[in-house]
């Protein structure tokens, strides 16, 4: 693998160079609230690679909360239809992605592009994307990527990966696009001693989980077995279901949740013109599976909760993603008003095993 070094003070040059071709997205600390958001940078200086894990995952860049997937016009007078798969997708670069969030995108990749059918809209986003990941040299309170094999260092799938080695940053190249960019920046080559320094940093980061990442203790493997084989007792799902407010927040902050809805919306300014929009949806919503005549095969909320956890924690999902559906970011635990973020649910299931 090709590796380079870049001076810490020059790291900004990467985004600068990318901004010639790409819209730049990255982690930024919002002034008023002090919260980190992953968003489009108006000013590249706002991007803060040492900001804490963003409140929102970068998912929306590749799978927007609402997007047009088709537009059409039905001219009734001429009885003619014009249709455009009008994706209008701009090239975008994600700079400073956390490894867990990269793993989230790789989940989405497998799901949208790696099965019988390819989702063309997603494919178009992905083709035009550049990804710069950032090794986590220290975890945050709610992190548990060590349990889900998604951090604190990125394995594959990045164009460039950065690791803070102190005065300098190690730049690992993961793709041809990455090679081309490194060439433009005329970086200094790195060697195995730098790789060893990175390993030391990562080992240290992993060692810090016990002291820092104290919010979530999610030991997932046993639980996956239980969830897959259907051995989780009714009353655990019922308890989890009872706690759920059906707000959908967990779904929306999850880097790997991908359920969506589709609706055709008429354009008020043009007779016969409509856009087909897809929007995020959540399997926890009551109307999610409702059918004609009001029949809903999936009524009780525990049915729907158990769907989400099955999706994150079963072998059949493992087959799809080649990893758990959960990437250990802990965001669902942050936002859940019912206190049933994934780590807690894992704990409830484990408690049942040891009971």
């Amino acid at each position, binding site marked *: 693998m090709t590796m380079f070094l870049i001076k810490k003070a020059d790291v900004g040059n990467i985004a600068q160079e990318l901004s010639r071709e790409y819209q730049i997205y990255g982690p930024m600390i919002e002034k008023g609230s002090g919260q980190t958001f992953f968003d489009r940078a108006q000013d590249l200086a706002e991007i803060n690679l040492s900001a804490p894990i963003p409140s929102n995952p970068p998912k929306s860049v590749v799978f927007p909360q609402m997007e047009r*997937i*088709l537009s*059409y016009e*039905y001219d009734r007078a001429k*009885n*003619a*239809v014009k*249709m455009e*798969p009008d994706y209008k997708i701009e090239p975008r670069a994600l700079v400073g992605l956390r490894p867990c969030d990269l793993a989230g995108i790789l989940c989405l990749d497998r*799901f*949208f592009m790696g*099965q*019988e*059918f*390819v*989702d*063309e*809209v997603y494919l178009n986003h992905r083709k035009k994307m550049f990804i710069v990941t950032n090794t986590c040299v220290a975890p945050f309170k709610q992190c548990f990527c060590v349990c889900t094999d998604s951090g604190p260092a990125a394995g594959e799938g990045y164009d460039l990966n950065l690791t803070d080695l102190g005065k300098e940053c190690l730049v690992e190249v993961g793709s041809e696009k990455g090679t081309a960019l490194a060439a433009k920046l005329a970086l200094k080559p790195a060697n195995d001693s730098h790789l060893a320094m990175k390993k030391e940093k990562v080992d240290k980061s992993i060692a810090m989980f016990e002291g820092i990442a104290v919010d979530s203790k999610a030991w997932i493997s046993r639980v996956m077995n239980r969830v897959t084989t*259907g051995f989780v007792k009714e009353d655990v799902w019922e308890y989890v279901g009872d706690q759920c407010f059906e707000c959908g927040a967990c779904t929306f902050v999850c880097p790997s949740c*991908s*359920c*969506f*809805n*589709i*609706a*055709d919306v*008429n354009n008020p300014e043009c007779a*016969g013109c*409509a856009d*087909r929009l*897809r929007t995020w*949806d959540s*399997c926890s919503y009551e109307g*999610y*599976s*409702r*059918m*004609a*005549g009001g*029949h809903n*095969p*999936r*009524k009780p909320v525990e*049915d729907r909760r158990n*769907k989400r956890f*099955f999706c994150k924690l*079963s072998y*059949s999902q493992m087959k799809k993603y080649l990893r758990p559906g959960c990437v250990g970011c802990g965001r669902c635990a942050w936002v859940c008003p019912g206190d049933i973020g994934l780590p807690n649910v894992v704990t409830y299931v484990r408690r049942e095993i040891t009971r």
Partner: protein
Amino acid sequence: MSQVLNIQNGKIVTVPEVATIEEIRDEIREVKTFYLSIDNKEIWNNFKYKSGQFIMCTIFGAGEFAVSLPPSPENDRFHITVRTVGKVTSALHGLKPGDKVGLRGPFGNGFPFEEFKGKNLVYVAGGIGLIPLRSSIVHALQHKKDFGRVLVLHGARTPDDLMYKENIKEWQSFEGFETYITVDAPTPDWKGETGFVHTLFDKANLPVENTIAFVCGPPVMFNTVIGELLKRGLPDENIYSTLERHMKCGIGKCQHCAVGRTLVCTDGPVYTYRQIKTLGEEI
């Protein structure tokens, strides 16, 4: 972007093909049959599907919905039969011959007819449950020599709710085809059977050995009929049904049609009762 990009494995995936409504026939209250043809002749000539598959139909300005393909894949005029239940289906009912719609598909698994060779086929349909079974029935009719007895049992609430009346007449006259009809609530002029559809089983001398049953209808009917079939000793893997779920993408991405660990749009809509039992959800 060329349309060809949107065809994967011979299917129209994202961008619908424009189709023209050639003719509309009334079936029963709230149900009409629409005869269609795809405008792009090349795609129309290469358009193939299997009995039991479905398509997504766009009504311009209203949206898209999932619909079965009732014609046999061979030698049968292409059509869909649709009941008005809401916004999109009502918009379709408001269209007239010559109007355009969009079609995407075919999607889903279809019936594994190869496995049915030499067997008796029993079709049990409640109300508009006959729509998704029609394709398979006509296929069986066209290949009668491949099968043993072929029985169609159709029940509806009233005589006015019986589906595909003209087809049923044809099927009745077809050698080796047995058709039994019943209604729950007869009108004064009704001369046929009354009672729920499973009450026909004795009259039909229902075969059980070497038999495949297809069951489709509202959830109550489904459960009663399955119960009766199992009681008579039909193995659960020989009972087939097509499931209906709320659908949006048709290609296994939106997850609206998830049932148990499967997706109705890609793993279904055809399931055996043995599979349905393990899905852990209502029908």
